[in-house]
């Protein structure tokens, strides 16, 4: 069903500093589904995101459904710990309707109390910052969320809730989610489709059919079996 397709990527090639980062990548994302992108460090996952956002030059074709609104959740911000910018002020970069902000905040599980909104952005924990960044991305009602999961800096308990949050978003928001993930458990639990990436497409399909031992070894190398637990 071509009209259900939100994003079509065909023959994508990205070269940075004369190095081929992504080679001949083609895939499709269906509306209201969740696509997880997995792959080892340096596989080009974040580069793929930057290409999808139009931040870097590329060859090939990236075709978003016309009029689609993209919300982007970066891994981190480039701020110093003591930047005099509060959570509330950061969110107000995008704020339009106050009611919308309230809705988004409760959706991502941020304490609506003034004390949290008055906290400085630089002192938040990894999990808190992640929620703020998701809230920021959701503020202008995007159709699709690009979520670049940080590799470190988030404690286990809040990690758990970030994913239940993603789950909640899938259920309530008619949101297409494209996420870069390092946690195969997360991929099994929340993704409809998975794209294994290591410069080129290694596998693409539902987690159950694609994440067999063979393709995992192809993506991550020998110790891949270790990742395979539910």
């Amino acid at each position, binding site marked *: 069903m071509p009209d259900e397709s939100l994003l079509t990527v065909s023959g994508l090639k990205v070269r940075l500093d004369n190095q081929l980062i992504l080679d001949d990548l083609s895939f499709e994302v269906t509306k209201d589904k969740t696509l997880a992108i997995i792959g080892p460090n340096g596989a080009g996952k974040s580069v793929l995101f*930057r290409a999808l956002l139009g931040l870097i030059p590329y060859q090939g074709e990236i075709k978003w459904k016309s009029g689609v609104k993209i919300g*982007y959740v*970066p891994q981190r*911000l480039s*701020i*110093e710990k003591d930047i*005099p*910018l509060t959570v509330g002020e950061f969110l107000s970069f995008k704020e339009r309707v106050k009611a919308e902000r309230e809705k988004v905040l409760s959706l991502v599980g941020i304490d609506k109390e003034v004390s949290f909104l008055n906290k400085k952005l630089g002192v938040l924990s990894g999990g808190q910052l992640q929620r703020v960044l998701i809230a920021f991305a959701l503020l202008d009602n995007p159709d699709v969320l690009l979520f670049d999961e940080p590799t470190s800096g988030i404690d286990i308990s809040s990690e758990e809730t970030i994913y239940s949050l993603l789950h909640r978003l899938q259920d309530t928001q008619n949101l297409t989610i494209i996420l870069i993930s390092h946690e195969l458990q997360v991929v099994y639990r929340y993704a409809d489709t998975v794209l294994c990436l290591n410069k080129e497409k290694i596998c693409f399909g539902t987690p159950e059919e694609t994440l067999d031992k063979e393709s995992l070894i192809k993506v991550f190398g020998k110790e891949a079996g270790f990742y395979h637990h539910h």
Partner: protein
Amino acid sequence: MDNLIFLIAVGSAIGIAAGYLGSFMVLKRMSLVGDALTHVALPGMAIALTYGFSPTLGALIALTLAVVGIWYLDETTDVYPEALVGIFFTASLALGLLITPEPELLEALFGNIEKIGFVEGVITIIISFAVVILTWSISQKILMGVVSEELAKAMKVSISKYNLFYLLLVGVIVAMGVKFVGTLLMGALVIVPAAAAKNVSRGINSYYFLSAVFGLISAVIGILAANILNISSGPAVVLTSILIFIATYLLKK
């Protein structure tokens, strides 16, 4: 007395504008660059003095060229070539020292607010406020670029355009300010009030506000002290701002 009030008004306008614009310089982690940038004014003033046109205009032209250079390096390189920028600015200072006519040298280096005439003063006040308003109008965009360039670009904010515009405005304020505190100390008037404000601000609006207020207080107290103690106003203004910095630093601790 009337003249003193007028000079305080001119100094205050520059202090407010320099403090406010400096707040972004500090956030952008460009404090040292911003400081050194002001040295570039000197050869521009020297050339203007030699060929008989306005030193402020000469400073403005030199600063604009330097600003475009900084902006270009910032846009095209990942690692900021700090050493290179430092060397270039020091070179321009050395060159400026050689070619500035002897009688004007001291004034160019440390400023002399007494020399600012009425018309020039009024123009300085008007331009200072225009610069503040223009900067205010793009402040969200600049800040967005500081917080995350990627996120800003993803929101279709053309960061590089706003950065260039901002840096050009800094050039304008520095050109206005060299008459006041001189080319050696103008950088301090841009950086120090903002650094002080950062020590004690709870949020971004109070940070902007305090940066401007500390610039203002530095100018007023500095000029008054210079007048009473019969010392040079440029160093008095900068030392006042540094006292404010020390006070806020202690307050933060």
